[in-house]
């Protein structure tokens, strides 16, 4: 079917008939400004083809002219069988007619049937595939009915090319098989192929894991049981052996033998020790005999030597005694002469000294009187200082004063505090004659201010007595009383009446200290080295010589020098004599000492010989020989005893071991018995729990669980394999199903997007994604421009497929490229031209300038003639 002409009358704004004529085979364009009626033309065509003439539906109502009237639409089409006019009138006097060459060939419902046969597919037939309404960019627009019709049309078209879609994709049988496989798999596994929670697969896995754990636990328990059995067997065997009478007797016999051997060894050791002690005694005896023998021998020799020495010493002493007498005589003479010279010299010295004193006395008389005066003044100053210091000590010092002041301040503060807290009584007499007020018996004068800090009695004679009691809360220690008492004690200690007294006393102290200081300064000035130094100096000054004769110091000095020389000579001679005497005396003393020593030695030797008694050297030698022999014998006895002695440490070790064996046996028996009892209980409990039986059962259950799991896993593998095969086959079939339209579409797509492909949805039989560079982009997320371009290209492809099948259907695009940019629109024009060779295309556009370059046959909407034909 190809459109050749269109006529509208009473359609919206076209009250007067308008027509389009001369629509060509290929690309046609009707480019008019907005509101020229292009969409009206489009809607009118759709209504003519798809809305029955009796319809009063919204499509028809939408065509009602503004000036009212019955919309009339006439389209001239050309088919393989000829040229026909299709005429429909709606609403008022509705009619449908088919005319061929002016001859009516069908009308009313027959006309509708004729139209339906032309568009083969009904409402959405081939034309439904390829009409693109203004702004309808998506592929699946329209009402559900229109969508369904379009789907059926696409299915028809594709099936006519590649076979029935059900035959290709398996249809409901495939869906049922796939649903069954998926449902069965879903019971077992998740989409990712893992066991489904709470599903049989997961349960089987968990059960196997649980049984693995249970078997392990029971195996541990069984192992423990067998270990306990083995241990008990070993313990029982050990206990039986330990309690075996023969073994007990053996142990005891070994112990008795060890004890006997050890006792015997100890006795032998004691005998050996006795022998050793005898050796020691004999050794001592031998050493004593040897010492005695040596002593006798030495004493005899010593006596002989001492006798000879004593004789020689006595002879030498005699000789020295004669020499000494002579030296003593010489010494006595020299002494006499020296004494005489001393006396003469002493006289000369005294004489000269007298002369000296006389001279000094004359020179020191004035100095003496000065010193005496200074001593006196110094003594006076010293006494004055001491008196002042003593006086100062009787008065309080500065710390004492500060303490008193602090106590006075504390007292004052306490009083102030008390006064501040206490009641104040101020007296104001009304008249001078008014009766006087007495406080504690004392009259209060007018204007007196009294602090009432304690219980007080206030009396007005003849009128009243007022008892005042301080407020509660003042009990407890009284700070004022305490402060006063402390101050009074401190003042009393110092003997003062009040603080002023103390201050005066402190000033007296300062005065006394000042005076003492002055006296000390005076004393320092008079006697810097002290009074005693002055006195010493005074004593050094000689007193005046009372003797009357005045001597010449020079003469006395010469006489004194001579006398000293004589005395020196006499002293020298005396020294020489004394030296000689001394040497001789020393010789005599040495001779005497030697003689005495020799005598003493002789006496000692004699005494030593006497102490040795009558024992002769021969007797001592005999005794020594005897002692030696005895020692040798005892040594031999000891050596013999030592050589025969058993090894005491060995017998001790053997005894210890025997005792340890017995003790260990006892301990082991005591330990094993309760251990066996414990094992008995453990074994009884474990065997009573039938561990092996439960283990065998658990193992069997584990084996069954393994089988179950393996069976389920096999089932999962089978279902997964089946599902995969079905899905893969379905994909493959779909690809094959869409291959012809994809092949038709591919060159158009590549005009806009080189190497791009479209993927197809089986349910809609429309593209669902644009694949560029291998990346699928769902159609719904593409831009409006891209979506409308795909919509047009898909329709062009379908139109071409229809045309190739001999079923021409016009592609009518009503302002379909509204979102397409300038670059793409050029390529869309190329696509339109490319397809126009096989399909009739009618482009309605308001974009006159943009579509000026589309090329193609230009159409004009012009007034129609009244013949009713387009």
């Amino acid at each position: 079917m190809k459109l050749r002409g269109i006529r509208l009358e009473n359609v919206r704004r076209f009250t007067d008939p308008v027509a389009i004529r001369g629509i060509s085979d290929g690309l046609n364009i009707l480019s008019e400004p907005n509101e020229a009626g292009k969409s009206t033309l489009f809607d009118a065509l759709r209504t003519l083809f798809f809305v029955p003439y009796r319809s009063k539906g919204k499509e028809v109502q939408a065509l009602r002219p503004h000036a009212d009237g019955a919309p009339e639409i006439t389209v001239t089409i050309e088919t393989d069988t000829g040229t026909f006019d299709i005429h429909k009138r709606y609403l008022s006097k509705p009619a449908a007619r088919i005319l061929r060459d002016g001859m009516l060939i069908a009308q009313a419902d027959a006309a509708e049937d004729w139209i339906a046969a032309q568009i083969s597919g009904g409402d959405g037939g081939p034309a439904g595939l390829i009409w693109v309404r203004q702004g309808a960019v998506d592929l699946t627009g329209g009402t559900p009915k229109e969508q369904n019709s379009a789907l059926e049309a696409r299915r028809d078209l594709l099936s006519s090319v590649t076979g029935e879609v059900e035959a290709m994709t398996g249809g409901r049988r495939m869906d049922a098989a796939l649903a069954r496989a998926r449902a069965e798999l879903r019971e077992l596994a998740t989409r990712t192929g893992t066991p489904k929670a709470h599903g049989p697969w997961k349960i089987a896995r968990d059960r196997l894991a649980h049984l693995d754990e249970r078997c392990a636990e029971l195996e541990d328990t069984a192992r423990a049981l067998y270990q306990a059995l083995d241990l008990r067997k070993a313990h029982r065997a050990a206990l039986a052996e330990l309690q075996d009478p023969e073994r007990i007797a053996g142990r005891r016999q070994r112990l008795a033998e060890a004890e006997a051997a050890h006792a015997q060894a100890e006795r032998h050791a004691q005998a050996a020790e006795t022998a050793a002690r005898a050796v020691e005694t004999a050794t001592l005896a031998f050493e004593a005999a040897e010492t005695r023998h040596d002593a006798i021998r030495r004493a005899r020799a010593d006596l002989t030597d001492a006798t000879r020495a004593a004789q020689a010493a006595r002879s030498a002493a005699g000789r020295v005694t004669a020499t000494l007498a002579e030296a003593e005589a010489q010494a006595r003479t020299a002494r006499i002469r020296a004494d005489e010279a001393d006396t003469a010299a002493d006289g000369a010295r005294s004489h000269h000294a007298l002369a000296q004193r006389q001279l000094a006395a004359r020179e020191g008389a004035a100095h003496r009187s000065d010193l005496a005066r200074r001593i006196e003044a110094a003594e006076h100053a010293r006494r004055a200082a001491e008196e002042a210091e003593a006086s100062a000590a009787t008065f309080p010092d500065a710390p004492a004063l500060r303490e008193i002041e602090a106590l006075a301040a504390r007292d004052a503060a306490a009083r102030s505090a008390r006064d501040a807290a206490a009641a104040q009584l101020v007296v104001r007499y009304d008249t001078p004659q008014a009766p006087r007020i007495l406080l504690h018996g004392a009259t209060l004068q007018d204007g007196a201010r009294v602090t009432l800090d304690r219980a007080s009695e206030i009396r007005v004679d003849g009128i009243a007595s007022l008892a005042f009691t301080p407020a509660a809360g003042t009990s407890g220690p009284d700070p004022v009383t305490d402060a006063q008492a402390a101050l009074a004690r401190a003042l009393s200690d110092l003997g003062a009446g009040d603080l002023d007294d103390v201050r005066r006393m402190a000033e007296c102290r300062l005065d006394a200290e000042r005076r003492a200081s002055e006296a000390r300064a005076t004393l320092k000035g008079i006697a810097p080295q002290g009074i005693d130094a002055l006195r010493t100096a005074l004593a050094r000054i000689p007193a005046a010589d009372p003797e009357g004769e005045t001597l010449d110091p020079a003469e006395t000095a010469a006489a004194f020098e001579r006398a000293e020389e004589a005395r020196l000579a006499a002293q020298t001679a005396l020294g020489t004599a004394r030296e000689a005497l001394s040497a001789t005396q020393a010789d005599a003393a040495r001779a005497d000492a030697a003689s005495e020593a020799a005598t003493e030695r002789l006496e000692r030797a004699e005494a030593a010989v006497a102490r040795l008694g009558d024992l002769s050297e021969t007797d001592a030698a005999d005794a020594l020989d005897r002692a030696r022999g005895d020692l040798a014998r005892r040594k031999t006895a000891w050596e013999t005893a030592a050589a025969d002695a058993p090894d005491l440490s060995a017998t001790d070790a053997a005894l210890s071991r025997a005792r340890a064996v017995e003790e260990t046996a006892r301990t082991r028996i005591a330990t094993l018995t309760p251990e066996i009892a414990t094992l008995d209980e453990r074994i009884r409990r474990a065997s009573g729990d039938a561990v092996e039986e439960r283990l065998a059962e658990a193992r069997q259950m584990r084996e069954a669980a393994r089988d179950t799991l393996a069976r389920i896993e096999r089932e999962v593998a089978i279902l997964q394999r089946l599902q995969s095969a079905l899905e893969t086959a379905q994909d493959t079939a779909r690809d094959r199903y869409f291959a012809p339209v994809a092949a038709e579409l591919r060159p158009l797509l590549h005009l806009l997007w080189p190497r791009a492909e479209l993927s197809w949805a089986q349910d809609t039989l429309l593209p669902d994604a644009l694949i560029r560079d291998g990346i699928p982009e769902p159609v719904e997320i593409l831009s409006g421009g891209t979506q409308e371009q795909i919509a047009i290209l898909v329709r062009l492809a379908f139109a071409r497929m229809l045309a190739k099948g001999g079923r021409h259907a016009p592609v009518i695009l009503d302002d379909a490229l509204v979102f397409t940019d300038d670059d793409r629109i050029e390529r869309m024009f190329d696509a339109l031209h490319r397809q126009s060779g096989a399909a009739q295309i009618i482009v309605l556009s308001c974009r006159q300038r943009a579509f000026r370059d589309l090329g193609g046959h230009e159409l004009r909407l012009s007034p129609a003639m009244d013949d009713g034909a387009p």
Partner: protein
Amino acid sequence: MTAFRFIHASDLHLGRGFSTIPQADDGNVRGRLGEARHAALGRLARAARDHGAQHILLAGDTFHTATPSQSLLRQTLSAMGAEGGIDWWLLPGNHDNLRDAEPLWDAIRRDAPANVHPLCDAAPVDLGAEVALLPCPVTHRDPGRDLTEALVHAKTPHGTRRLGLAHGAVTDFAEGRAVIPPDRDQSAGLDYLALGDWHGRLEVSARVQYSGTPEQDRFRHDRRGVCLAVSLPGPGVAPEVEAIETGIFFWQQSELRLGEGADARAALDAILPATDRRDTLLRIAATGWAALPQRADLGAAIDAAAPDFALLELDLRALGTLYDPADLDEIDRGGALRLAADDLHGAACDQALPEAEREIAGAALARLYAYMREIDA
């Protein structure tokens, strides 16, 4: 000398659980299997009375585990004790060996009724009637030696019938274990060697016999459990041995061989027993080849028959699948379903793929086939 009669049994495995046996939610096959083992005691006693035997020799593994529960032990001893006039001789086996089951044997020695005799010592026991019982109690789970060797040197009075009782493998039961020489009767001068351990009845020689368990517990032996009624006429004289069926449950294994075009339902019906299904545990190993419809038919037939049985299992691992294009057409002649079927078929037949992948693909295809049958039904 009169013949000495006794019952030879073994491997009661009292207390054995059957958790690996699938059990329907409304079934109690595991409980029935356990109870059947206990009831075997009564059947043994009846067999003894029927054959004039006073003694029942249990050649080991009377208990399944070394530490059976108190109730199991007490009920077992009570059941034995209740069989007046019968003496039960219990030999420790590897499951209830002396080491692991020491508390068990202590308890039996302490609590057992007078007619129950634990044989915990490898010492001859005079059974009277000039019969010496020579027990070989198992000391450990794996003693690592042939315990019957001691029988060679076991001394018994001249003219006494020597009756050996032991538990262990003679040969080929398990590698690496010390085995009992099959001619131990000769080397030890035994008139009879009653053996346990092998759950099926096995005659090693005229004088060396395994009784097997009186109540089967596995599929290996393909017959109900038995005990042996043995008669020893006299020293050196061959024993007379008769197997007496004591088992309730029949553990059966069957092979179902299928081929192209075979009627799977009919083939299955042909091998299913007509009677005693309730006491039958049947494991069917399907072999050969089956097309997808046959497989589906077989599965449906098994599902239909299974409730009759104590257990009915179908093992398809050895059953190959034939892929007939017509069967694939049943899934779909074209389109996506056929694509999926072709994909799975290709994978199932692709020898380059690991066997596991092939198997899963084949199962997935069978599943798809079953789906489409149900969907189209």
